[in-house]
């Protein structure tokens, strides 16, 4: 469903991706692991059009996003493609990024009503059922600031799901949470995965990555150093770098 081919990206003079290739099939769950600054977030953000890249192509369901230096790149076409991709892919951020001036309910209904143009009543019905799914239906009228971090992140997930995405990108969804709240968020993600949602998740939760993913990629300095099934990566990593990285986490 998501196909990344020959991705080149540099920040200023600093190269990040050097011809990265990755394919994510429908229904698969890809865990992206690696040290900080390895490009996990940037990779997800490139897919969703929040970051530009110089060369290569990212294709989502046949919608092709080209690097700015590619021959096929044109600004207007790209803007249109990005919209199509964002309609298909939901994203959850490390910092939740809920809209602080709206209630939980309005955070969720905002895009369906204003972007998809469905009626408010219908959007609210969907929102309530999504809130039930993340076990927060009683917080519908609260403001984000009145929620804990874990609750906020669950609302953010419900907000992304309200757009009925075909795939979800999780950008370190638990990294800014207190330890006791990590579990409640991961449970929601787990539920979602079990329903067959195509998912990419950048995470430092190795246990979780091992339990829910179908594929794992280990990223370092923008390169996929190792890829494979969770079993293979976590039990028997081939690469020296992967071993060192995992040894620090799996104690």
């Amino acid at each position: 469903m998501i196909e990344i081919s020959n991705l080149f990206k540099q920040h200023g003079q600093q190269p990040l991706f050097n011809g990265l290739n990755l394919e994510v099939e429908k229904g698969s769950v890809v865990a992206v692991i690696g040290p900080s600054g390895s490009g996990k977030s940037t990779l997800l953000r490139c897919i969703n059009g929040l970051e530009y890249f110089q060369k290569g192509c990212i294709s989502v369901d046949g919608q092709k996003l080209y690097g700015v230096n590619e021959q096929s790149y044109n600004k207007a076409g790209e803007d249109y493609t990005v919209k199509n991709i964002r309609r298909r892919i939901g994203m959850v951020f490390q910092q939740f990024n809920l809209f602080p001036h709206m209630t939980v309910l309005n955070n969720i209904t905002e895009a369906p009503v204003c972007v998809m143009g469905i009626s408010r009543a219908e959007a609210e019905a969907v929102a309530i059922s999504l809130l039930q799914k993340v076990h927060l239906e009683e917080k519908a009228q609260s403001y984000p600031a009145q929620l804990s971090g874990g609750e906020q992140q669950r609302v953010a997930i419900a907000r992304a799901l309200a757009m009925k995405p075909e795939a979800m990108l999780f950008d370190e969804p638990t990294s800014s949470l207190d330890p006791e709240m990590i579990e409640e968020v991961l449970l929601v993600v787990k539920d979602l995965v079990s329903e067959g949602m195509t998912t990419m998740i950048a995470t430092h939760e190795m246990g979780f990555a091992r339990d829910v993913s179908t594929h794992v990629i280990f990223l370092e300095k923008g390169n996929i150093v190792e890829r494979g099934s969770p079993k293979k990566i976590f039990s028997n990593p081939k690469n020296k770098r992967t071993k060192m990285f995992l040894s620090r986490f799996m104690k």
Partner: protein
Amino acid sequence: MKHMNRKHFIIRTISILQICFFMMYFFMTDTFAYQDTLEKIKSSGVLTWGFDADGGAPYVFHDPKHPSKLIGFEVDIVEAIARELGVKVQNFQNEWDSILLSLQRGDFDIALNGIEITSDREQSVLFTRPYFVYAEQIVVRDSDNRIHRLDDLHGKKVGTLYNTVAKRMLEEMGDVAVSTYSGQVEPFKDLSLNRIDAVLVDLPIAFYYAAPNPQLRMVGEPVGEGYYGIAVRKEETALAEELNIIIEKILRSGELKKIYERWGVWNTSQEKLFLHEGLLQKYTESPPSISEKVPLRVTTFLPTLLKGALVTVGISILSMMLAVVLGLILAIMRLYGNKWLQRVSTAYIEFYRGTPLLIQLYILYYGLPNIGITLSAFIAAILGLGMNYAAYESEIYRAGIQAIPKGQTEAALSLCMSGRLILRRIILPQAFRIAIPPMTNDFIALFKDSSLVSVIAMVELTKSYSMLAAASMNFFQLGIITALLYFGMSYPLSIYARRLERKLKSYD
């Protein structure tokens, strides 16, 4: 500049400390009253003369060829008086509205500046015998044939100078729409721009400004004759006597006539100056009907002040609305526009922040007609204030918008929202909350700055106050009442803004 002085004056009046000084001053002048000013003038060799050169030609004004030099028929008179006294003249520029007040305070020895002798002024100062017989002259556009005499002014829009006998005459006619000006040039300018139908002013002014202008024409006989006198502090009888003798002398010697002829203000009416004794009796026994005493009663001044307050509120609200909308457009142009829109917005902001509001108002009202755009005073006031404050508002919005974390935009983008939608639904509501406290600040500042529009013939609260105060000489009580009116209007605004802020803050 003149109006900045007045604004400062009000601020001063309400400050308690200054009030104490003020009272001390009064007591001091009372105590020292018996130390004769005439003695003082003679022993120091200096006669201090209070006037307002802003009032203009042909009384006292800056020589266009040598701007540092003062000329005018009154300059010549004062020089003659000083020569007779054997002393030198020291000039004291003072705003005309408060000239008698400054005289009482002891800022100068004599006030001589086209001050009409009226019975209400005689309550507070002592006048010498008249040195000039004035009359009111109607001036119209040369092309206008509707107006021939004073009665024709009924139902018309007529300009005059404020705190003058002419203004009171017009007001007593009942149905004349009176526009009051502080400078002598502006009413004639507005007359030629069709903003008003006629001007009624003292003859010398009409003669000096209207006669050389081919667009304007003086019509009818001068009406409402009255007298200019030299004002001294009430207890200075000796000085007044001395001045009377000098006026008599230069009148009989023909020097006064020569001065008037030189300035083109001599007419046969001036012969009446010779009827000294009889004349004095005439104007002290039965003062001209147009100069009835203005008693300071609530019923007299409150309606005027409230009317002024209404204008102030109207102008403030409308210009703030303009400032909010225009400021938002400027901020968005600067933040999201292309290079050219950004430059336009930046240039606008720098220009409006870097030049005085007063100059902007003058350009809008008196400058634009030169390129064919004639705005009414009300529109010019709203545009002037609104466009000025838009520059400040836009910077507040820009700061507010930039304070919103990038993550908000990214989250909205990932939800497929368009840039415009994000701005409207996500960024601006949050930025607005940040902007409320500085916006309240600006609105209150604008509210007070609205007093500046009196320079373009708008009569709002401050102007109403200064006119009432100048007419009744009651700067203190009226000043307190006016300040309270301002405060009574701005304080609820602060409370409301605080409440709004609290309400919007409820979500974090």
